[in-house]
């Protein structure tokens, strides 16, 4: 008799527990997915539908909003600028960050710990604090309002991540593998290209993509340091109060999707950087 009751109680508790667990999962997913879904619906609906109420729950697959977005004066230039700046940022942060990561993982040098700390410290200063002196300096050197100038600032933001991710990647490759290559006829350079590079290439790609996303999403420096050559984020921000609703939706969608896809693609390496087991 008693045994049966206990059994019933545990089953009940377990069922309730599963309920709570399930609801939490659904809630968390909804937290992320619902806004994205609304963004999708409104992007893929005709401008009239977007501005009316109530809104549909299924997209109409009308490209009206996106066409309007593409034809909006300056929008495509801004999109091109965004891609250029992000591309440059990606290249520069890897070209500068990966050797730093390699040096940190392979060589012992004086001030190594301080160097690691300093890399992180670059993220400790809020960008608004740096923006004014930067703007003044850029105007003095003629870097203001250029794609390259902005890419420089974004590279500074992306480098700490590039260094830390590549540091973790290089450290994951035993020195013995390189030494074995040296004894088998490789120079330091060929050992790197034939052994180390193939092994870390996926990780390097991941950290490059991460740098791309950082630049792609950055708005403050872009808004302060450019006037004519605005990136997409800065351009949308500038036109926020004057642009119609469907333009905002389409712009938001265009901004979010690449970032989302890229981050999803490289999640394994970002987890590795933060020391979380993947999967």
């Amino acid at each position, binding site marked *: 008799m008693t045994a049966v009751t206990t059994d019933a109680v545990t089953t009940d508790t377990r069922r309730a527990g599963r309920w709570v667990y399930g609801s939490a999962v659904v809630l968390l997913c909804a937290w992320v997915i619902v806004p994205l879904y609304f963004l999708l619906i409104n992007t893929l609906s005709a401008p009239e539908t977007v501005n009316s109420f109530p809104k549909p729950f299924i997209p109409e697959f009308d490209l009206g909003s996106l066409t309007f977005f593409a034809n909006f004066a300056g929008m495509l230039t801004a999109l091109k600028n965004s891609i250029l700046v992000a591309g440059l940022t990606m290249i520069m942060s890897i070209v500068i960050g990966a050797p730093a990561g390699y040096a940190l993982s392979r060589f012992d040098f004086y001030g190594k710990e301080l160097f690691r700390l300093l890399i992180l410290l670059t993220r400790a200063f809020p960008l608004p604090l740096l923006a004014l002196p930067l703007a003044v300096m850029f105007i003095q050197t003629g870097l203001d309002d250029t794609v390259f100038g902005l890419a420089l600032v974004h590279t500074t933001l992306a480098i700490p991540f590039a260094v830390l991710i590549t540091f973790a990647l290089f450290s994951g490759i035993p020195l013995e593998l390189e*030494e074995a290559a040296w004894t088998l006829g490789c120079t330091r350079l060929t050992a790197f290209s034939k052994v180390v590079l193939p092994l870390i290439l996926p990780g390097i790609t991941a950290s490059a993509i991460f740098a791309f996303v950082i630049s792609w999403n950055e708005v403050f420096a872009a808004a302060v340091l450019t006037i004519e050559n605005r990136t997409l984020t800065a351009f949308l921000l500038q036109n926020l109060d004057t642009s119609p609703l469907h333009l905002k939706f389409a712009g938001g969608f265009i901004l979010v999707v690449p970032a989302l896809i890229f981050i999803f693609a490289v999640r394994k390496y970002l987890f590795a950087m933060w020391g979380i087991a993947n999967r």
Partner: protein
Amino acid sequence: MAQIEIKNVAKRFGSYQALHDINLTIQDQEFMVLLGASGCGKTTLLRIIAGLETATVGEVSIGGRRVDHLAPKDRGIAMVFQNYAVFPHLTVFENIGFGLRMKKLPNDEVKGRVERTAELMHIEQLLKRYSGELSGGQRQRVAVARALAMEPDVILMDEPLSNLDALLRMEMRAELKGVLAESNTTAIYVTHDQVEAMSMADRISVMHQGEIVQAASPIEVYRNPAAEFVAGFIGNPPMNFLPAAPAGEGKWSVAGQVMDGPSSGKPLKFAIRPEDMRPADEGLTATAKVVEPLGAHLLITCEVQGSMFRAVLDSDMSVKPGDQLTLAPQPDRMRWFDPDTTLAVA
């Protein structure tokens, strides 16, 4: 033809002296084992020969050619690493052929050599696999095959068997010895395992605190240790030591027994291997403390005048803890050491 000559090699890491003035000549096709406890400098010496580490001072020559300023790839060596270092992004075939590809050998020659060495190491059925799909023993075979495929003058091995389990290690030991003997290369093999050293080496260099204490054949190292360290390091259980007081010209008093020994003016240490003790009517008086039957033998830990003393006796003997034994050392196996210099005295 690759005789290796090491002259006055020393290595410092900051303020730590890892190697002191090493002088060693390794003959062509000799199998030399560097034996010592961890931290004795044996791996550092091997890495200096390989060119993975530079000596602070000294010269290294391979086949009569100074190599200390050459990169590892230009020294005519191949190396087997402790953790195998099999390239994970390449198949076993490409791993074994890696060095040959770097030499830009034609495809069919690479294929031929890879297949031959793979056969030699019994891994011909694994050629298409990746390192992640291999067991530790198989990876070890790939690492050795990769080194042999280079047909080097000198093959260097850094504790290659230490990551294998005991049974596999024994099997690989014999196999490796056979393969290397056939390959006609000079081999330097680093290990901390004295059984490995004894069973494989043509000559053993026993290293201690950055110095070579003795370089001799395994039997010589075992029978005639040049220093107290070697006597206490080689052999399981190691040699016994007892203080000896002078008792006239060439006579020594050891634990109350007078024995024949070398002539020397100051007190010495008497040393004897545990298996060189025989029960007798006259000899050292020992009190058994622990009796360990090992099948073929009895290992008896006893006390002789306050010092610990081990004896290996025939397992037919019936000895219990607390028994009084009278043990006589075999006269031709007795050794003597100078307590100040720790060196052997003849």
